[in-house]
């Protein structure tokens, strides 16, 4: 099922969040959204998550979206396992939750309270909570920005790996152009609520930080953001 947006806008009185967005996202497609602070990235993500009832225009969203926010937002009074299994339907929800926790590398920490986990571990629980629902669209709002550089690299690798296995459509909001180039097939650039650039990455683009082709694209995107590399 393709996600379709036609003329989607959002504003609060005179403040513009999104303005006249046209966008299609195919099944299993990985899309990065970059843009300066306040450009409307989170607003777009919330619209796609079905969290915003104030948007205008036509939006055919995903059947089963799942969100990972910038902070883990776990229920502090529920164990890691219970957080993942929360509201999960179907057969053996706890077994599926357990398996998903193992997939994000938290086997053995099922009974830990969120307060007993590190920041990176909590964020992995949040990732497991989203993925265990087998979403057709996984929405990530700067999920790694609160992590230290090393943890971030392994969390990025984990997302790449999980996408390979589950293949949901993916929308990754990020400040980090390099992260966008490493993890997605397509980069959208927002400015003042408008979609100003939509770039598909070549399938053969090597996903290595030091690859010259990737470095050149990074420089180009930074220039478009108004930053001289």
């Amino acid at each position, binding site marked *: 099922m393709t996600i379709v947006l036609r003329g989607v806008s959002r504003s609060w009185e005179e403040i513009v969040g999104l303005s006249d967005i046209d966008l299609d996202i195919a099944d299993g497609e990985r899309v990065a959204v970059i843009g300066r602070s306040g450009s409307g990235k989170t607003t777009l993500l919330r619209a796609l998550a079905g969290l915003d009832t104030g948007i205008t225009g036509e939006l055919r969203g995903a059947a089963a979206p799942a969100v990972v926010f910038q902070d883990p937002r776990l229920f502090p009074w*529920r164990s890691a396992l219970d957080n993942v299994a929360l*509201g999960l339907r179907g057969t053996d929800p706890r077994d599926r939750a357990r398996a998903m926790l193992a997939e994000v590398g938290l086997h053995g920490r099922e009974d830990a309270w969120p307060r*007993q986990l590190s920041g990176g571990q909590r964020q992995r629980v949040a990732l497991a909570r989203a993925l265990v629902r087998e979403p057709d669209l996984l929405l990530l709002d700067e999920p790694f920005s609160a992590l230290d550089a090393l943890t971030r690299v392994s969390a990025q690798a984990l997302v790449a790996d999980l996408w390979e296995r589950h293949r949901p459509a993916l929308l990754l909001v990020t400040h980090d152009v390099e992260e966008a180039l490493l993890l997605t097939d397509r980069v959208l650039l927002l400015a003042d609520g408008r979609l100003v650039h939509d770039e598909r990455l070549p399938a053969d683009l090597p996903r290595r930080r030091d690859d010259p082709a990737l470095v050149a694209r990074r420089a180009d995107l930074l220039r478009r953001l108004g930053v001289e590399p």
Partner: protein
Amino acid sequence: MATWQLASSTGALPATTIGSPQDVTAAAWVLIEDGQLSHALVVSLRRVVLGVLLGLALATFFGLVAGLSPWGDVLLDPPMQMARAIPLYGVVPLFIVWFGIGESTKVILIALGVMVPLYLNLTAALRGIDPELSEVADTLRLTRWERLRHLVLPAALPGALVGLRLSLAVAWLVLIVSETINAESGIGFIVNNARTFLQNDIIVVGLLTYALLGLATDYLVRRMERRALRWQGGATR
């Protein structure tokens, strides 16, 4: 204790003011021996338990309705705030007119005293639920019941337990007051009788009993708190 005994023995503390620990213990022993104290305890405890249960039920029901629905808030909050502003002891005469001087007046007074602090703390806790977690509940498509069970109640629990402790403290106070005003049985009755006959030792025994009961309930709630709020600590479960 030692100071008390010393002051009594040396006569610095005359027995007409307050008896020595020995005298008080002796008085307590007599009351326990002839079954007066245990009978009074049962009667007083029954009043408190009934009043507290009624008050808790009312507070929980009103608190949930007011805290979770906008119209409930509009409808219930003003009368509750008024109830808070009226001093409880002021309504005692009115209650005696309405309900007589029997058991129901005492139970209802305790229930009212218990209801107000718990209601206030519960509604405050419900209003303070993190909107970000509420949003998570939306994205997880939790049902009403799941939301109540996994988000609303656990989030409100710390505040509710603070309210419960306040409520129980109030319950004992109201018991003492209502038993002092009129009672044909219970601890307050023993104390009142003793006052008539100037038996200070017995009054002290009554007061100590009240104090012990208050401490015991506080201890129970603290234990409940520790168990229910394990997730706030660092220890593994």
